[in-house]
Each structure stands twice: as C-alpha cells, then as structure tokens.
C-alpha cells in the first residue's frame, strides 16, 4: 500500500526532496498564517467595536 519502503526513502522523494519538501512546507506555512491572520483580524475588529460601544455608552 505505501509507496516507500523506509522513512529515509520517503524523505529522499526519489531525487526530488529539495523541491517536494519546500513546496509542502511553504503551502502549510501559508495555510497556518492565513488562520492566524483571519483570527487576528476578527479579534481586532471585535475589540474595536467593543471600545466604540463603550464610548457611545459613556456619552449617552
């Protein structure tokens, strides 16, 4: 079922390790960064909205 007979053979990726692993690494890095960016954006927007509501209440 598995295409590789050993872990070192898997890491070697034929002779393509230098191209395969950076591709996977970069893709997963950007996948992770997008999660962090999106959550950060929402957290900031919610914080800002809460602050705005608090000031509005202060003026009322």
């Amino acid at each position, binding site marked *: 079922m598995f295409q590789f007979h050993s872990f070192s053979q898997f890491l070697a990726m034929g002779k393509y390790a230098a191209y395969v692993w950076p*591709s996977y690494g970069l893709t997963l890095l950007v996948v992770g*960064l997008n999660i962090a960016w999106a959550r950060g954006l*929402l957290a900031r927007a919610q914080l800002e909205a809460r602050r705005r509501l608090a000031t509005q209440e202060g003026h009322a």
Partner: protein
Amino acid sequence: MTWTWFHRLGSPPYIYRLAGRLTPWFAWSAAALIVGGLFGGLLLAPPDYQQGDGFRILYVHAPTAWLSLMVYTWMGVAAAVGLIWRIKVAHALAAACAPVGASFTAVALATGSLFGKPMWGTWWVWTPRLTSELLLLFLYLGYMGLRASFDDIQRADRASAVLAVVGIVNVPIVHYSVVWWNDLHQGSSLSLAGKDTIALSMLVPLLVCLLGFTLYFGAIVLVRLRAEILLRERAAAWIREVLA
C-alpha cells in the same frame, strides 16, 4: 415564490451570525480532508512514470492554483454584486477574499517554480500560463493597495470593486492558457467532460485535496467576513447583542 431568503443574504446581522455558526463545520471538514489528501498524495499515490516522486508537488500546487482562481472569481462576483445592488455584505465578502487569494496565488507561483525547476530545467518561463498567473497576483495586490489608499471604507469598496470586476477577464485566460496556446505548462489532469488524464490512485488524493482547500478557504473567508462586517457596521444596535 418568496425572496426573503435572498434578502437575508444582504443582512449584516444575519450573515455575521450565520458565518460564525458555519465556520467550525468548514474548518474541521477541511482539516480532515487536507490531512487525508496530503497523506494519500505523499504516501499512497504511485510515482509518476515520467516525473517520479517529484509529481507529488501536484498535491499542493494544484489546490493552491485552484484557490488563486476560485477566490478571485468570488471576489469579482461579490464586488459586482456590491456595485450593482449597493450591498454592504457583498463588498465585505470581496474585501475578505483578497488577502487569502493573494497569498495562495503567491504559493501557487512558488510551488510551480519548485515544480518547474526539476521538470523543465528552469524556475520561470514567460509563457501564457505563468505570465497570466503572475498578473493575477498583481491584480490582487493592486486591489489591496487601492483599498488601503482610502480612509473611507465605502469609497474604498466602490473604487476597488471596479478593479476586481475588470480583472475577472484574466481568470479564464489563466485557466484556458494551456489549451489556447502551446504552453510549457502541462494541461489539466481533470476534466468534467471526457476522460481524466490521471490514474485513479493519483486522482482520488488530488480531489480530496482540492475539496479540502476549498472548504479551508470557506472557513477563512467566513472569519474574515465577520471582521469586515464589523468594520462597516459602526453604529448598529445588533453589534451590542452579538458581542455581549
């Protein structure tokens, strides 16, 4: 036939709440599919008869390239809807798409370069597929730069929407470039009509990855959409409720 469901799609509080409820479903199914698909692509799919194990780059290159086009289509259509019907939520969706699309277009170009070097012997060639994909990145960056140049979010929405809509013409050019011109880039492995040019054991992990990355985009854009809605709904009473 009643159109209330359609009108609700333009309602910021409805979309904000709906996006919040849908996000975990998209996120967890995406995580399962991406892990499963990459596992299959790296370990179960047989090596390509020409490209050996190097072809496994396809399992990250094809989904990111697919995202680069799909996200732009969402962005362009949402921007058009926002322009025509003046719907705030549509503009919010377009704005939410751009950074995600830009980052995955950059990844598609980079993984394509890493794919091209061992297979073609070069990191880059100015062929139609690669050039139009690079233009796609510049369209995303131009859209984001244009938005950033306005202080007023409504004016940013309208101005950037025009650019997003005009840029849609580039999407079919990227997609059909390998059909219309004799490109160094290989043709599509998938086809809705006719036979796929890929073995089933290679195809299944690819389809799983494509679906996984699509759902992943769904999760990310739903989170960003909620943030973009909050930025546009400054004085609305419903915000007090959802933030309580």
